[in-house]
């Protein structure tokens, strides 16, 4: 298989796409929580499967996290969204979401699902809209609760060598809420995505 890569122009284009999608997602998150979301700058990179663990560890160093992933597919382009949530964020999140129940594992799972639905949904939808692709989303899967970031992917034997990774770090003003959204596209999807991007660039 030929080495899959992206050119500088393509990277800029992905960056722009992500900016727009991320902005839409941030707007929805802000409306859901009624709070100010700090607008982050997405990072776009082609990474090796061995680097993914590092990317995740960089995102959440030395803290316990809870993680959810959700697959999406449309027009033959497939990917997975991964949301890593710092466990220290739940207290403030519960307050913002007006969550009344006890903040145990189940309570945290509720909050995690509510936030990931909105963030992942909006991001995937935002990217799809710009590319004129309708993405279907699978059901979210809990990868782990209260685990170290490096353990999240340990169980997976990766069937891919390289992936296009869009990493978005969300924080909120004045409250201790901190999460990372990773959009990962499979290798064969990157080939197709590049074609769509080239079409937009022309």
């Amino acid at each position, binding site marked *: 298989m030929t080495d899959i890569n992206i050119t500088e122009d393509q990277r800029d284009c992905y960056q722009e796409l992500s900016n727009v999608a991320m902005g839409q997602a941030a707007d929805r998150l802000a409306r859901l929580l009624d709070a100010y979301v700090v607008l982050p700058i997405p990072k776009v990179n082609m990474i090796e499967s061995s680097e993914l663990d590092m990317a995740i560890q960089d995102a959440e160093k030395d803290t316990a996290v809870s993680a959810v992933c959700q697959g999406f597919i449309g027009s033959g382009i497939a990917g997975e969204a991964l949301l890593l949530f710092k466990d220290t964020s739940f207290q403030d999140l519960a307050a913002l979401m007006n969550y009344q129940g006890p903040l145990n594992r189940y309570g945290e799972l509720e909050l995690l699902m509510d936030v990931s*639905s909105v963030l992942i949904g909006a991001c995937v939808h935002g990217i799809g809209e710009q590319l004129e692709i309708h993405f279907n989303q699978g059901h979210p899967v*809990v990868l782990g609760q209260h685990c170290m970031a490096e353990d999240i992917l340990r169980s997976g034997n990766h069937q891919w060598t390289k992936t296009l990774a869009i990493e978005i770090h969300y924080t909120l003003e004045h409250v201790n809420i901190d999460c990372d959204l990773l959009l990962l596209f499979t290798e064969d999807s990157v080939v197709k995505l590049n074609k769509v991007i080239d079409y937009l660039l022309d």
Partner: protein
Amino acid sequence: MKDPNIEFGDIHWLMDILQNIDVGLVVLDRDYRIQLWNGFMESHSGISPQNAKEQVLFDLFDEIPRDWFMQKAEPVFQLKTRTFTIWEQRPYLFKFKNYRPITGRAAIMYQNTSMIPLESIDRSVDHICLIIYDVTDIAVNRNDVISANQSLRELHQYDHLTELYNRPHWEPKFADEFRRSQRNGRASALVLIDVDDFRLVNANYGHQAGDEVLRTLAGALRQTLRQTDHACRFTGETFAVMLVDTDAQQAVHFAERIRKDVETMSIIAPGHELSVTVSIGVAASQPAFDSPAQWQQAASKALNHAKEGGRNRTTLYQHHS
């Protein structure tokens, strides 16, 4: 995928698909009144589409908590985003029976649900679609894996015969308690309990009887212990008990109680009724101990002393500085 050129006749078979697809479909309006209720929902709930139509969802199904549901559904209306619930957070939305009542191993149907916004012509969202997936098999399998892992962990921690902790699992707890007592000066005691003439029990009554003796003793130990105490099968016929927040005198009192209980206990083994005695060595934690091993040696010395002194007795380790 919206095709405006759909023929009127096509609607007929599209409706057929909606009716027969093995997934629950419900359309709700802004007031959570049911607008569409497909065959799956009818079959599992026993409520016909005629009776469901225009009913408020929560009035019809009191197992769905209104506030909880709205927390998931309002973003669909307001933010036009899809939302999801999974069986791990709530096993089911609708209390339906398992599809396979005989071989299914779960009484209820586990469900994942999706809620998707339905845009009207002016692009506002006045309706949402609720999709119900049956994930019972996935949930049952997943729970099986979890409980299998749990019992593997327990197998790893417990001694098979006595169901007390095994020694590899007990040692770290003992080492922790050693450090704690050294740090805080907290009193704790190690008690070693050894069955007298165990070899004779095996020789005279057989190994099955020997096993029964150990099982019975372990059972008696478990009943005497507090939650915070840890007992293990230390070696073949020796048990170790770590008593926290317990000084030498209290530990000896505990040991004597066990010893007297055992003395009067009759053990029922296949074909025999027998009784045994135990010798017990007690060592309270000392600031002079510099390792957990030294503490164990002290208890061991006391135990040997009890054996040499004629068995069926308790000896307290005396520290000479």
